[in-house]
């Protein structure tokens, strides 16, 4: 912490593009992740017509069990809408945290970063609840291709959210100890970029999985 000049130099790099290498790297990684989620979403969509049995996200005439039972649609839109809204708000909170970090306002930083973390935790909790609920209703990975592609897609998204929560929590601890000073706000900016990306992936997943029939 003694060498502020060195850190200031690191925060305002003398690179060929004028962009800090870490910021360019996280964007590069995000670009690559676009293809990761695009492939998972494709996998969900190409199997949309091939769910041999229920339960599914919406009613379907083919989805009757051998005993003639019609499967009820399984998705609970209100709960997921709440999770979606909170994830969107967490994006707002993390930019507010960043704005405070850049101004060196430790209290504001701790507050907004804390709110971000709570939203992220709620989202993960919502997903755990949803997954458990689906399993109770008889939908597992093995049940049908909706189960498989749904759990894999949303599960990998949830894993990304969890990693983001761990990352932001680490930064929150640093901020709490007074180590996330204004000249090191780039550390938060990079984590925030990752967080926003995970958020926009959900912006795509939400209508594709939960709303489109």
């Amino acid at each position: 912490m003694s060498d502020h000049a060195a850190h200031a130099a690191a925060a305002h790099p003398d690179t060929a593009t004028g962009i800090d290498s870490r910021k360019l790297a996280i964007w590069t990684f995000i670009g690559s992740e676009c293809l990761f989620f695009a492939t998972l979403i494709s996998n969900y969509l190409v199997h949309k017509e091939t769910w041999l049995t229920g339960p599914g996200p919406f009613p379907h005439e083919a989805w009757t069990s051998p005993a003639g039972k019609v499967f009820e649609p399984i998705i609970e839109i209100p709960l997921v809408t709440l999770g979606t809204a909170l994830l969107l708000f967490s994006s707002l909170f993390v930019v507010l945290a960043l704005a405070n970090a850049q101004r060196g306002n430790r209290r504001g930083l701790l507050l907004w970063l804390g709110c971000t973390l709570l939203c992220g935790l709620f989202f993960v909790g919502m997903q755990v609840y949803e997954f458990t609920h689906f399993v109770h209703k008889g939908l597992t990975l093995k049940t049908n291709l909706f189960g498989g592609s749904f759990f894999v897609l949303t599960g990998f998204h949830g894993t990304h959210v969890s990693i983001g929560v761990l990352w932001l929590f680490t930064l929150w601890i640093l901020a709490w100890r007074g180590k996330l000073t204004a000249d090191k706000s780039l550390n938060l900016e990079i984590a925030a970029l990752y967080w926003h990306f995970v958020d926009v992936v959900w912006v795509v997943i939400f209508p594709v999985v939960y709303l489109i029939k």
Partner: protein
Amino acid sequence: MATTALGHRAHAAAGHAEPTGIWSWITTVDHKRIGILYGTTAFMFFLMGGIEALLLRIQLGSPDNTFLSPTTYNELFTMHGTTMIFLAIMPISAAFFNFIIPLQIGARDVAFPRLNAFSYWVFLMGGLFLNVSWLFGAAPDTGWFGYANLTSRQYSPGINVDFWLFGLQILGVASLAAAVNFFTTVLNLRAPGMRLMRMPIFTWMSFITQVLLLLAFPVITVALILLMFDRFFGTNFYVPSGGGDPLLWQHLFWIFGHPEVYILILPAFGIISEILPVFSRKPLFGYAAMVFSGIFIAFLGFGVWSHHMFATGMGPIADTYFSLVTMLIAIPTGVKIFNWLGTAWGGSIQYKTPMYFALGFIAMFIIGGLSGVMHASPPADLQQTDTYFVVAHFHYVMFGGSIFGLVAGAYYWWPKMFGRVLNERLGKWHFWLMLIGFNVTFFPMHILGLNGMPRRVYTYPAGLGFETLNLLETIGAFILASSFAVFLYNIYRTWRGPRNAPADPWNGATLEWSIPSPPQEWNFAEVPVVHGRDPLWEAKRERSGPLPEPARVSGEGIHLPNPSYWPLVTALGLTAMMAGVMLIHHLGPWGILAGGAIMLFGIFNWVFEPAG
């Protein structure tokens, strides 16, 4: 977060003595040492893949041969393909990215030195992971392409496919980490004045390769994840009886697989585009056309994947589209070939070994390219699919192209890497044996394929007219192998000789030749300023003569990154975690949790240690 330094330790200010000993290699973050590690490891795997090929050729040398069992044959051709692609050509290219790119752009290291070390260690673990399967007698046996549903639990109940699945997953992490690193390095660490359109062409082609890696590898990652779920957790993504579709695997695999072939060839394009001008004493003909044709090839590479799948019956519209776009690729490739010829045309050609291999590359790659255009036509492709004609085609582009290019690069940059020039006479023996051996091995495959000899089959009956050419191919394979024996002997002899290579043995045009051979740890004592595309030639022209030999300096006051073993710990954790998934039905979640804990421990220590 990779280089976040939360503390700061003053580096020993006095002149740096080059550290030695095995610990210095384990903890190294120097891009040159990592490049040498990549090259050495990959060359070992290359020799293994070569031995696998020789065994295959012995088996096919005579009809109804029982030298190999069908099972072993399947394992050998699968591991030969997987090894050569993921453990030989890609990492040998990575060796050149590591060693050469920072030198060509006038940088002291890559953007993230520890991430670079991490990439190497993960690559090593992935390679070992794949090859450990031999010790369990369970080497992957479903082809490097691993078509579903042969890879399902039902048809491949053993752990063979699991080694392949998780081995590739580990290697993918190495490739992605390296790609992020080099993408950032090329954009951000260029010396003052080195605008994008002044970058050496090898750096350009490598840069494009990183883009391909970044966009293609996530797709195979997901395809492998889906396979993992099918095999371990009972999903049915590729299982028709569960509503799934084996064809989806083929689509995802080739969406990755076609960019992958450009990942394999573009670095070689770059290497020979460096060699041809230097040994023709002329600037590269059509620099801008070379750059843009490279970009165009890479871009089109994402839109042609289904030309590997004409035989699956995709319908007339898809067939027409993929056929046309595939044929379009011939245009930028042709632009490149004519520009290479234009570079050599009228030059005062120096017949040195790197130039031999570069010219050999052009000739062999043209043959491979022409048979490629033949496959682009669906009716012709239907005849050629699954025959030796295809085997001939991709060996002409992968061996005649990539390997010729990489060997050319090895001879060209050897003096810079090791301070010793490889022997010219042995180098030419290497070239001629390789050229003759290669053509004797692979050219007859065109004829055998058109005569209907199927590939991936462990033997063939006598009396079909396949005997003579197959025997000839086997002889050719041993000539080819002997060329690499000459190469090894050349390396050994050179190693024993004095370390006396000058900084600029070939009258080079690019920045790497302006510094001592081998370079000192910090590469450039003073960061160079660039005014054009061939900075060294311009400097020589200004002086009207050769530049003075650069002095080795003490490096006082030059700041170097600290060595670190956390990248290795993190790589070990990652590998343990993957092994944990593979053994989940035996260990429960504990293997994954243990590996994950080691990985997290590594990451946190890495992030919070002083980067230097």
